[in-house]
């Protein structure tokens, strides 16, 4: 095991897949000479050249659309959106094209495209640069959604996404790029649709993904001091969604909370809660709770921003009420 950052883990995954498959290439704004707005693609241009690490104009719709076309033409494009906020300009190509092509052509076409995008708040970047939009993509059949929390998963999931044939939205949290974690030496893949039980417990299940996983773990440690034994599940991917692991845990604990940085209303938490109700209603001793971002745009002011976002203290407070 080596301790590396989430950013380095992604960079390793890209290098390994570029080495492994000639069809794999990267394109996006600033991915080449700049090394990526968040430096995820740093150093790749020098090794792989402009053909495989391609800087694009600022034209998100056509960056993604060209990715779709290149995938249909037999390549395995990895498109980087500078942030998911800018990805909204590409929604037509993501939802109407990438997600539909395999289906509406009766299975006769495929779009093996990975769209990577940073997202999330916490850096006082204001309303247009701080959103967590995974629910938009989770809602749409035909798209996979990967949303890793740890460096090891960032690497293993990205490699798995590149090697399969569906279009994927791969969401990275901007606050995680510098986070270090153990990453296995050598080649490995993290399977899509397999949640990770980070901490076993018997009193309450905390389901989370992306950055909020760290808050969930911190909250579980705090709760332990109060004699509450929390189980923490990192979903890793939202589509496929590992409902089985969540339900199994809820059957044991009888209580569940979903923690996520998307807006509370209509977020992934609502879907996960609904699935828990459908599969484990009789095992629940309390309503499923959602700890999420307040239903406001993200404000600039640091104090206000922090108050809008879910944190470990919020999780502890809600858990105390539930048990």
């Amino acid at each position, binding site marked *: 095991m080596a301790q590396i950052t989430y950013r380095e883990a992604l960079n390793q995954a890209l290098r390994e897949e570029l080495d492994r498959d000639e069809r794999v290439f990267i394109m996006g704004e600033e991915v080449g000479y700049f090394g990526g707005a968040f430096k995820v693609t740093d150093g790749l241009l020098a090794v792989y050249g402009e053909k495989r690490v391609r800087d694009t104009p600022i034209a998100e719709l056509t960056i993604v659309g*060209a990715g779709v076309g290149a995938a249909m033409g*037999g390549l395995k494009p990895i498109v980087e959106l500078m942030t998911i906020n800018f990805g909204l300009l590409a929604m037509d190509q993501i939802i109407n094209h990438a997600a539909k092509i395999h289906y509406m052509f009766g299975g006769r076409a495929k779009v093996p495209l990975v769209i990577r995008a940073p997202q999330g708040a916490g850096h006082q970047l204001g309303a247009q640069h701080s959103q967590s939009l995974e629910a938009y993509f989770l809602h749409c059949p035909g798209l996979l959604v990967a949303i890793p929390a740890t460096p090891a998963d960032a690497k293993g999931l990205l490699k798995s996404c590149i090697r399969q044939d569906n279009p994927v939205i791969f969401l990275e949290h901007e606050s995680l790029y510098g986070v270090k974690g153990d990453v296995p030496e050598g080649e490995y893949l993290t399977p899509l649709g397999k949640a990770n039980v980070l901490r076993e417990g018997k009193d309450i299940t905390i389901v989370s993904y992306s950055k909020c996983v760290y808050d969930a773990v911190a909250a579980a440690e705090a709760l332990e001091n109060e004699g509450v034994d929390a189980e923490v599940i990192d979903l890793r991917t939202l589509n496929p969604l590992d409902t089985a692991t969540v339900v199994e845990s809820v059957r044991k604990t009888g209580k569940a909370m979903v923690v996520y940085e998307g807006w509370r209303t209509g977020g992934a938490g609502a879907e996960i809660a609904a699935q828990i109700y459908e599969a484990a209603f009789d095992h629940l001793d309390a309503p499923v709770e959602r700890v999420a971002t307040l239903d406001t745009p993200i404000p600039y002011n640091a104090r206000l921003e922090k108050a809008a976002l879910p944190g470990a203290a919020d999780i502890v407070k809600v858990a105390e009420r539930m048990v």
Partner: protein
Amino acid sequence: MALEREKHIAERALLTMTETQLLDLYRRMVLIRRFEDKVAEMYSRGKITGFCHLYAGEEAVAVGAISALYDKDYVVSTYREHGHCLAKGSSPRAVMAELFGKATGLSRGHGGSMHLFDGELRFMGGYAIVGGGLPLAAGLGLAVRYKEEPEVVCCFFGDGALPQGAFHEALNMASLWKLPVVFICENNFYGMGTLVQNAICQEELYKFAEPYKMPGVRVDGMDVLAVHAATLEAAARAREGEGPSLIEATTYRFRGHSMSDPAEYRSKREERIWQERDPIKHLRRKLIQDGRANDARLAAIENEVAAVIDDAVKFAEESPEPALDTLGKYVYIDADGAE
């Protein structure tokens, strides 16, 4: 004037083409017209439903352009794509069956009139979002260049796509990267019911090529040879690595925007003027005048086509509906490649 030059080239094309080639152009155009007429009939009989946009009147554009390509070249199209798909060589049976929503259709009944796809023939699909196909065409062009293959991508779209951001983004990217794409704008003068001059600040659409540093020409889209000649030139340029071109083919749809549109925003007089310029009649006259074919030969082709259309309808009618268990198929591809 671009149009004069293209006319001259078209005249030359007529002289240099073999009789077989000329008759093939005629046959393909008649096939599309008869196919569309039959589709209208089947639509009114409730056999075909949903949105259905017919190509009658515009045949010279699809046939002229696609006949100038090699088989392995790619075509990207719109929701008015029956003509492009047939011109590329797709089976009329499979196209008609798709319109009937049958399991034997090109897209297994999951696509319909607006979503035909024939990968083997490199007909890369009909897309029903205005302008949606242009970024895809750029991406296909990128794949061709990446693999160092000799193909070109021919991308059809209507005048309605020009104000879309996708048009401008895709032209910029294609020109910047010298992608082998031939952009063909079918200017039928109406985006649904809105006149071009009420939607676009520059009515001479081919002039949008200039800011994107690519050749732009306006051709008579009712003259199959003019479209053929312009596409040959643009495709050759793309194949040689010199980048994309924009061809504006002025044309006219003989029917409304879709089957539900009686086209009341157009005058009868205007329709008559364009009907007189019918691209099929135009080629027919030309072939006979120049002694390249006689009436009997052309009539024989028309009869052959009529039989093909009847066969396609029979095939579509007799084909099974998609099984209900295909409803959830083709949403995802499993890790082992299964659907």
